[in-house]
């Protein structure tokens, strides 16, 4: 194919590594920049709740020693990097004997599943709708109804989520409002469980897809309108190719390239945005866990989730970067011509 040169791959992998390193360093630094430290905050919170805690200062000291918070900052940082590599974030601060990883890991499949399906659906549907809106040969009746699918684009998706819950769960009562699966269903690999999970996923999925696909559609529409007037697009029609071939191989195939780049860059935003959706639907994903860890000031869980998000986003971008030269043969060419 287009030719992934060794330099290109190396450069992208280096970028991937650098992005993760900077992100991970920030999750280390930010909690330490604030006033006070997690342990004192948690203990003083306990004091507020219970009125009095015996030996508060000693507890703080022993916790600090246990978590190594008294060591010089560089030692802490190096130890932290080592832990990150081993995916070990120590114990949860609020649910002490449980390791942070054990809280985060079960949440991960929920979020990954939701996001992968939601983002590909939203991109796929959005791009198709947009390309059809921008294509000159789209039948008129389709041209007229397509814009209706963009009605909900300007609504923030948490609001749309609330609306969906109201209509489908409380009013029509045909779909569950919250959660990942019903309490009375045992998590197992059988149809009852799977269909239950799918039913629970419909509303969160729908709220992300419907509100975010409009952006892709509008962008793609503009790109497609540009392609309409390209010489190669006219020539493809002059050749008497079937309209579907013209549309896919000479239209979408070219117009989608900038959209794909935007998709890669938007991955991060999608992940952070989903936190809100998970919170509204009480969906048992990392977003929901993150929200609870923030309110509980559980730093190790927070760090664990943040770093995971950084790694997932960077990996998504890397994957698309490596895919790009296969999709657009000009990319590696320009690189090797420049260097």
């Amino acid at each position, binding site marked *: 194919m287009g030719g992934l040169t060794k330099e290109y791959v190396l450069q992208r992998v280096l970028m991937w590594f650098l992005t993760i390193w900077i992100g991970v360093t920030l999750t280390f630094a930010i909690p330490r920049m604030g006033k006070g430290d997690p342990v004192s905050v948690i203990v003083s919170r306990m004091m507020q709740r219970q009125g009095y805690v015996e030996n508060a200062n000693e507890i703080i000291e022993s916790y600090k020693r246990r978590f190594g918070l008294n060591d010089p900052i560089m030692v802490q940082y190096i130890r932290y990097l080592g832990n990150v590599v081993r995916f070990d974030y120590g114990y949860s601060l609020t649910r002490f004997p449980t390791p942070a990883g054990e809280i985060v890991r079960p949440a991960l499949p929920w979020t990954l599943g939701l996001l992968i399906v939601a983002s590909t659906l939203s991109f796929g549907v959005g791009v198709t709708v947009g390309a059809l809106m921008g294509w*000159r040969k789209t039948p008129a009746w389709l041209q007229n109804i397509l814009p209706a699918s963009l009605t909900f684009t300007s609504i923030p998706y948490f609001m749309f989520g609330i609306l969906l819950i109201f209509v489908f769960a409380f009013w029509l009562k045909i779909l569950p409002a919250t959660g990942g699966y019903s309490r009375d269903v045992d998590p197992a690999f059988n149809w009852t469980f799977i269909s239950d999970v799918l039913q629970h996923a419909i509303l969160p999925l729908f709220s992300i897809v419907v509100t975010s696909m409009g952006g892709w559609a509008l962008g793609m529409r503009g790109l497609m309108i540009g392609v309409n007037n390209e010489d*190669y697009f006219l020539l493809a*029609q*002059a*050749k*008497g190719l079937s309209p579907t071939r013209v549309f896919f191989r000479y239209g979408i195939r*070219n117009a989608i390239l900038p959209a794909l780049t935007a998709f890669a860059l938007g991955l991060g935003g999608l992940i952070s945005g989903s936190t809100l959706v998970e919170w509204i639907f009480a969906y048992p994903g990392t977003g929901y866990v993150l929200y609870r860890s923030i309110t509980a000031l559980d730093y190790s869980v927070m760090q664990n989730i943040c770093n995971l998000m950084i790694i997932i986003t960077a990996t998504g971008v890397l994957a698309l970067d490596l895919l790009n030269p296969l999709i657009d043969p000009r990319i590696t*060419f320009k690189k090797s011509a420049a260097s």
Partner: protein
Amino acid sequence: MAANEKILEVLDLHVQYFTPRGAVKAANAVNLYVKAGEIVGLVGESGCGKTTVAMAILQMVQPPGRIVKGEIRINGHNIVNLSEAELRKVRWRELALIPQGAMNSLNPVLRIREQMGDAIQAHEAISARDLKARVLSLLNDVGLPERVYNMYPHELSGGMKQRVCIAMAVALNPAIIIADEPTSALDVVVQRVVAQTLLDVKKRLGVSMIMIGHDMGLQAQMVDRVAVMYAGNMVEVGPVESIFAQPLHPYTQLLIESIPSIRERKPLKVTEGLTHDLRNPPTGCCFQFRCPRVEPRCLQAQPAMIEAGPEHLVSCIHYQAR
């Protein structure tokens, strides 16, 4: 009957672009025919409507443009108002195009083999192996090496791309090829090579062609008949020898005088004035604002085409019998 040998006939063609500020009359009552095996040159300055006529022949005038009136006949059959599906069968099998600006006529993300192959596959059932052999022999016909088969357009030079377009145009041995300034974006040497390739292919296949261009020198060497357009109107059509020996229309005379020559260094003839706005053409002759021979009677109506010699037509009042 003479009509039988006319492969392509353009009859009273009117094309207008309906812009918000009025209709651009880009082709007015254009008449033209091409006989079997003939090359007809279509010349005129930029913006006079050459590409518009070419696109109208292909039924591919882009919005806001539209064929307002007229017929395009291929082997006697009118193709204006054919359905999209019927047109698809005519395109490329009967009517091929070498587009203006070959630099951008190939899809940058598809290999040459796919872009040449799909044109053939769209019209013929052909096995993968035969298709490959066919594409390779087409590349060979236009003097391109076999490796081009697997290349992307950005890996080719301008001249090579143009030759790919030529190979593509002759792939189905169409009745007529429309070449829209096939050489204008290339440097002079490559221009000659590409023009020669085009002539070779044409000679071998005996295909008819319309060659659009504004280089009168190049036209003189390649075409059998010349059609001169000015501001959307056909002003003179005739055999290349008689057009060059005896140009009749003042605009044609001007075009031929402005061909640069080494032997006599004349000051470049700057054609005075600009073409009028095609949105509101004047009544009378379309060339009235720039014509050195303009008279009051020129301002009354666009003069009809009159036969001034064998196959030599001109639209100028000065040649009308009183």
